[in-house]
């Protein structure tokens, strides 16, 4: 429970200054964002913040009683730690409310150089058990951990009963089916990875080709899916593709579904979760505003003891499959 009575802190994505202001205006308690370079895990063209834009964003958020969490959550390249160190130094200087880190070396740097800077453990660290989380809390003073999307609600409950920091969970948007930060599928096909370059299945390596009345989507040299003319074409994220094994053909890893845990908010509250994270720094300002408003309305309704607004998020996942992911054990 927050001091304002809300059961959760709503943590919203911002890929651009415009989306940042939209998220704050829509009622985000916190906004997370990154610098425009490979220090953050959404290093997409046209996305993220210059130093000046970040300063302006922080001023705007603080004037509106919102917090800013700066994601510096890729793994620094050997021999070139300076870029990542500068990102942490700048976040501290700009009075960001927290940095979101994954790399052990960078955590050690931030804890030593900026003891007053609040550290959140990125989902990219894949800390999936209380003992892992204890390590980061005891060694680096981590105050909050973003839990990997591999845990069920009973497991999250156990973690919260055991650890000395807050937890934050993903509730809406893209769904990694692999433990985050432990996946090199993208670099196996393209040479570009989330951990090293802040990208997954990058658009620069996607091609579409029409042949025999079918549309084939490829990532690097590999066919990810093929659909008939007129059928909806999902972006060829590697783990959401269709492949073959000796047992048959289909979505071997996961359907092209996105995460939607809105119906699990009461259970996540009972499980002791502090913050709800919405994925999508690459999404449009309009999308960000709509999702944030809907989640804020839901959280406010919970605070009043009212039922969940039924119209919540209607339309946002329309035409696309949604899943509760690993929160329900049957997903496994």
């Amino acid at each position: 429970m927050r001091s304002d009575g809300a059961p959760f802190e709503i943590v919203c994505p911002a890929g651009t200054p415009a989306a940042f202001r939209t998220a704050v205006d829509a009622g985000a308690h916190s906004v997370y964002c990154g610098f425009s370079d490979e220090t953050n895990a959404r290093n997409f063209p046209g996305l993220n913040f210059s130093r000046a834009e970040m300063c302006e964003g922080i001023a705007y958020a603080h004037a509106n009683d919102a917090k800013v969490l700066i994601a510096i959550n890729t793994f620094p390249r050997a021999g070139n730690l300076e870029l990542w160190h500068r990102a942490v130094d700048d976040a501290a200087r700009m009075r960001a409310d927290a940095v979101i880190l994954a790399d052990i070396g960078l955590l050690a740097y931030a804890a030593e150089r900026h003891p007053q800077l609040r550290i959140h453990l990125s989902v990219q660290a894949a800390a999936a058990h209380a003992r892992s989380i204890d390590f980061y809390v005891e060694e680096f003073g981590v105050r909050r951990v973003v839990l990997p999307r591999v845990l069920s609600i009973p497991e999250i409950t156990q973690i919260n009963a055991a650890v000395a920091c807050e937890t934050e969970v993903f509730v809406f948007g893209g769904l990694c089916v692999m433990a985050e930060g432990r996946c090199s599928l993208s670099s196996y096909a393209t040479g570009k990875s989330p951990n090293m370059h802040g990208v997954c299945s990058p658009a620069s390596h996607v091609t579409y080709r029409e042949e025999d009345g079918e549309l084939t989507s490829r990532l690097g040299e590999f066919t990810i899916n093929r659909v008939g003319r007129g059928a909806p074409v999902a972006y060829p994220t590697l783990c959401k593709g269709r492949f073959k094994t000796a047992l048959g053909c289909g979505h071997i890893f996961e359907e092209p579904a996105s995460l939607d845990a809105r119906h699990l908010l009461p259970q996540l509250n009972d499980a002791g979760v502090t913050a709800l994270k919405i994925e999508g720094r690459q999404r449009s300002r309009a999308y960000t505003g709509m999702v944030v408003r809907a989640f804020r309305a839901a959280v406010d309704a919970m605070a009043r003891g009212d039922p969940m607004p039924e119209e919540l998020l209607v339309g946002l996942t329309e035409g696309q499959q949604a899943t509760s992911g690993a929160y329900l054990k049957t997903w496994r």
Partner: protein
Amino acid sequence: MAARLTLGPLLFNWSADRYRDFYYRIADEAPVDRVCIGEVICSKRQPFLQECIVSVAERLERGGKQVVLSSLALPTLEREIRHDWELAGSGRIIEVNDASLIAALKGRTFHVGPFLNVYNEATVEYLARRGARLVALPPELPTSSILGIAGARGDVEIEVWAFGRIPLAISARCYHARAHKLSKDSCQFVCGNDLDGLAVETLDDRGFLAINGVQTLSYTYANLIREVADLADKGVGSFRLSPHTCDMVAVAQTFSSVLRGNLDCDEAMVRLEELRIGAPFSNGFLRGSAGADYA
């Protein structure tokens, strides 16, 4: 001194008989310095190995190998943590594959496995302060990163993934069970059907990945036979060979001969091709290109 060879932990679900026979032969015949044993991927498989793992460890030690106990790559359950912490109490060298185990090794030396994210010299420095003496790097690192780390840390042995299907991802979901339309809880251990993993092909029949329970590997086999000598000259201390059903003694002999300067790379490549593993080789990660590539 020539670089060392490590036989990594078996990643697949083999029967206890096959497991024992495999390691007894390694103990007697394979020119490797170290052998990592223990279940890394799925704790449900662990009970099957309990009966033979002690005799395997003792046999390997009698064969002159250093035995290293590998921990789980993604422990999430209490019993999994308990299992890993019991390993830590065994007195043997532990290969840490998850941060949850580091606290259990306070005041002791240990090895770091390829499932713990180590991408730079600062992380190695931190782990060395905590007692790490060997760090097996994640297979996706390019040569520039490998050499940057190896050059900065003379006191920690740096190991590189040199042969075998490459671990690419791990999940809570079991893809073997899913492919067989089973739930993870009643999986019937179908992963045991595929001794080198279940091949995953693209819709146009190109080998792409391999499924091993909750783990996803490459379809290709990493093969750095042409690169190991140069990497060793530049400070890489050890190379990892990952167990498969192909003749791993021959694989170890080939790498050992190249590292000792007794075999040239072309001849070594011919010997590895003669193993007929049924999938292409790859070395793309080293060059920072697609990991599936070979050049």
